[in-house]
């Protein structure tokens, strides 16, 4: 369970309401693949990932990024039950996709960087702190069903 103060919850909700989930998702996933190139191992079928430009403009990366961030959005609506919310996805990532949960932490931190870039001054240390709790909670929930 993620323990956010009332202030943190409202800061997260307020900022998230301004996030363009489609764009931010693609940017976060793209940056993950650029900054941590070994993560490309899960996306062999995505086509051209040969350069930062190729990755960031790849339509499959954008589509998948959107999917991932929509899931994340669901998490934000269920901060009191992240493990329940992500139980099925956790099983999927373990049993079918075979994704090392370390990658969830990497993506979480990349998302924080993307939010900082988009929101600038608004992304205060306190807001960052709240989001770090959220991304850690989501990463843990996604890893919860691994065996």
């Amino acid at each position, binding site marked *: 369970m993620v323990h956010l103060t009332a202030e943190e919850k409202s800061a997260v909700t307020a900022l998230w309401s301004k996030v363009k989930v489609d764009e931010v998702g693609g940017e976060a996933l793209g*940056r993950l693949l650029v*900054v941590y190139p070994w993560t490309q191992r899960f996306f062999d079928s995505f086509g051209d990932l040969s350069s*930062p430009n190729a990755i*960031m403009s790849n339509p499959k990366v954008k589509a998948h990024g959107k999917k991932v961030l929509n899931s994340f959005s669901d998490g934000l609506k269920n901060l009191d039950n992240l493990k329940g919310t992500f139980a099925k996805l956790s099983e999927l990532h373990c049993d079918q996709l075979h994704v090392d949960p370390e990658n969830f932490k990497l993506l979480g931190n990349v998302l*924080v960087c993307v939010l*900082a870039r988009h929101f600038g001054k608004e992304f205060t*240390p306190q807001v*960052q702190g709240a989001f*770090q709790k959220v991304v850690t909670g989501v990463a843990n929930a996604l890893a919860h069903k691994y065996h």
Partner: protein
Amino acid sequence: MVLSAADRAAVRALWRKLGSNVGIYATEALERTFTAFPTTKTYFAHFDLSPGSAQVKAHGNKVADALTTAVAHMDDLPGALSALSDLHAHQLRVDPINFKFLGHCLLVTLARHYPGDFGPAMHASLDKFLSHVISALASSYG
């Protein structure tokens, strides 16, 4: 994960742009680290960690100087940072996981202040550079 010529050029160019503000950003990165990763405060129980603290600012400047040294010696980070590594390993005894937290918060600070410069390739080069710095800092451990 070697630092390519392109990585080094990118980091140097950004550092030139930061100019005399490196201290300000390192201080902000420290503030973010204390806020986002509260366990890091355990190493600073003797500090005033309230917003605007002079001690945090002074420490930010120290971190800034070390990073600037690192930028100037990217071809020999272990050499350039060996004294700092000894200090952190043997005197301060900081668990190296904490270097990653500060590194991440530096990236967040730079993304916040230089959104136009913080493209994916720059993000990658900075992350690599900081990983090498962290590696050099951890080299005296054990």
